[in-house]
């Protein structure tokens, strides 16, 4: 429901990294998104297409790794993962008491960027690509 502010958060992190590492163009952004993070991947892609306009990321693709939901059961103590979007009971013993251990991720992992040669007297890439 708040994918636009998340897309904006991604762009802010890209911009901060661009300042730090001195790149001017981003090809792709790798993300890890948990199935229970509350983010709808398609809505995030759409929101990112809008916020990336006229920025260093305006051609950047989102490479999204979805993380399945998993937890540890407080009764049978087993670790489990599931393909579902929500866990309502331990799939092993049926207990409704468990702690979620994965599936709530919302992280940027890495950026694939164009190296910056201009102004360094070493233009290895005259085509600009």
């Amino acid at each position: 429901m708040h994918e636009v502010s998340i897309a904006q958060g991604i762009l802010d992190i890209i911009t901060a990294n661009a300042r730090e590492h001195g790149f001017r163009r981003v090809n792709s952004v790798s993300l890890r998104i948990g199935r229970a993070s509350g983010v709808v991947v398609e809505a995030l892609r759409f929101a990112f297409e809008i916020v990336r306009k006229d920025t260093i990321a305006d051609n950047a693709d989102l490479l999204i790794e979805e993380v399945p939901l998993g937890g540890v059961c407080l009764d049978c103590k087993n670790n489990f993962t599931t393909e579902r979007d929500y866990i309502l009971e331990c799939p092993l013993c049926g207990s409704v008491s468990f702690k979620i251990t994965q599936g709530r991720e919302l992280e940027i992992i890495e950026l694939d960027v164009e190296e910056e040669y201009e102004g360094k007297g070493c233009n290895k890439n005259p085509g600009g690509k």
Partner: protein
Amino acid sequence: MKVKVVTRILEANERIATENRRLFKEKGLFVVNLMSGPGAGKTSLLVRTIELLKPHLRVGVIEGDITGTEDAERIQSTGVPVVQINTGGACHLDANMIQEVLPELPLGELDLLFIENVGNLVCPAEFNVGEDMKVMLLSVTEGEDKPLKYPLMFQQSKALVINKIDLLPHLDIDMESLKERARALNRDMEIFEVSCKTSEGLESWTTYLTGLINSTH
């Protein structure tokens, strides 16, 4: 070229939430983030809670709404300091919105600050604002299935207040099943059954709050 980043996207929010938390602690302030769906009675609960706590504690309120100042005016009638945030469409309050309005409240003169979140059972649970605890409000007309549909809200909240119990004679809701499902998601959840209309149950809720505040002071 690959640049390793590994950053939580909501890290900026978490950072500001930590700053807010530090400030609240410095001022000796206990902060409750109150969340519910629209119309469950957040403002009514606050008005009634303030009436009961006002002789003993200094209370302040931050009101979050998409638009309008009606809720803030209702709080203002109780005589406690209140600030209205209009999110202008955003479905939740975040730490930054809270930080921006804090200078407008006399934080050093308060014991308890309520933050009334935007009416929504999904997004507010995702954003910490620097609170000591999240409290969820649910009204009996919403039905016993809500824990199954909005599990995160129940998992994140330390207490659940069930409002409008004066309506129970007219409804089919299974209260035992509601409480069982809520506790299944959150074993340690404190549950209060209240009616803001008749005042039933409000005293055990305010006693609980007062106890928490005294134990942290």
